[in-house]
């Protein structure tokens, strides 16, 4: 059973959609279940720090996948990118009052998609990428390829969909 909070974020997802001209784009997919998440971020500089000014998500997945994506955008908004990349799957599931054990991988996916967006932002600006973000990036790329989806897929428009 899902918590009320999960159902709330599933039925009324926060920050759903896609930012125009984003500063960073992240895609994460789970090769086992096939869920795919895309996160776009806008970054603002203040006092020499990078803050996540706005963040939106798009997800194809189960209720847990949608709720964790929605929650990770809430947790990340307003944080510095350094703090945002420290958001763990436990943080996300705790904020949702817990997830069924079998759905914990969904919160992983949400954290990965956010990290990918931050990675994208940092690499575009030639910022020094911390080692653990680099290794997580490699792992996420590999797993996402396992779903058969690539960045390009998510970007490619498919016409006349309902």
């Amino acid at each position: 059973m899902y918590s009320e909070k999960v159902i709330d974020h599933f039925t009324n997802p926060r920050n759903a959609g896609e930012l125009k001209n984003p500063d960073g784009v992240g895609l994460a997919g789970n090769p086992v279940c096939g869920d795919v998440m895309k996160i776009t971020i806008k970054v603002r500089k203040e006092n020499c720090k990078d803050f996540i000014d706005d963040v939106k998500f798009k997800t194809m997945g189960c209720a847990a996948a949608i709720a964790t994506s929605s929650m990770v955008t809430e947790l990340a908004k307003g944080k510095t990118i350094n703090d945002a990349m420290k958001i763990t799957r436990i943080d996300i599931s705790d904020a949702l009052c817990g997830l069924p054990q079998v759905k914990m991988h969904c919160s992983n996916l949400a954290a990965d998609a956010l990290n990918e967006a931050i990675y994208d932002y940092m690499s575009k600006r030639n910022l020094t990428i911390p080692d653990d973000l680099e290794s997580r990036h490699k792992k996420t790329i590999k797993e996402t390829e396992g779903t058969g989806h690539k960045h390009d897929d998510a970007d490619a428009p498919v016409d006349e969909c309902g």
Partner: protein
Amino acid sequence: MPEKTSYLDNAAATRLDERVMDAMKPYFFDIYAVATSEFGYSLGIEAREAVDNSRNIIANALGADSDEFIFTSGSTESGNIALKGVALALGNKKGKHIIVSKIEDFPVLQSAKALEKQGFFVTYLNVDKDGFVDLEQLKESITGETILVSVQHANQEIGTVQDIEEIGRICREKKTFFHTDATHTFARLPIDVKKIQADMITVSANTIHGPKGVGGLYIRKETPVAKWMDGGFQEFNLRAGQENIPGAVGFAKAVELVTPEENAKLKDMRDRLIDLVLEKIPHTTLNGHRTKRTPQNANITFHFVEGESLTLHLDMRGFSVSTGSACFSRSLESSHVIRGIGGDHERAHGSLRFTFGRYNSMDDVDSVVSALEDIVRSLRKISPLGKKD
């Protein structure tokens, strides 16, 4: 919870018909004795007669003789008796080879896998894009060591109905025994053992508004089935254990209550649902054959969205349906049937199964389609796949 519930998962379980309940009731409260021999006391004899009478009704519906049908606890047990019973009887005599289709339901599939661990060899037949087994592969696979072929009559998820007449003919010609799982076709489609050369047929009560926990197995005379449920000598000494008398009575009543008109109505609902969804909702794919499918089953993939999300949204609006999505299953594995027909993860991911029953109406069809239009649109809006806003 919504005020009205439209239950569209009749392949999983059905609502009991009150008339079935009425038929069963005396066997809980009045004639509750164990079924005895004709030399026993009156209550026991009456119980015996009830089981015999129920057996006659069901055997008759299959075109079989009464002593060719045993009651079981359901399809799972029937499938186990068929596969393991023949394996036990012939494994050390004729050979250790068994053939099943790769889209069988779990009782047959898992029985085959369990036998593999015991040293049997299993061929898993491929199916085409609609779910039909490869008959050439079947013919080529049967050897002198093959003791059993088990191919379902119709599929539990996509509803595709196999040509079991032809499969039976091939098996007979090649002198191997043939079991078919008719859980989703018994009473819904004609099955006559005089025409279909099946040696064993699995049937179940709970797919036709009968009681749960009751099923049966037709076993043609001379079919070698070893007894492995040991105890008493019930069910022609093939399956030990006190007879479930109310269950047997309920199963027979459920069979009697199914009419050709009802099956025609189910087919109309199925066809309307398929036509409406494919017409009104873009990016949808029908799973299974368009016409050679059970009258009660529609299975459709809604691309770019996920099945558990769909079922949850539908549930909030009062519709009960099931999905082949990995996210829905406890094992986190997507449907082996959709993958079996060549579908990728995504096709299984967004697949929904609608199965109709006695208590559904055309209103259910129209309302679920209109709910789906809405739900699919909103889930696609937040999906990274497909068209942008």
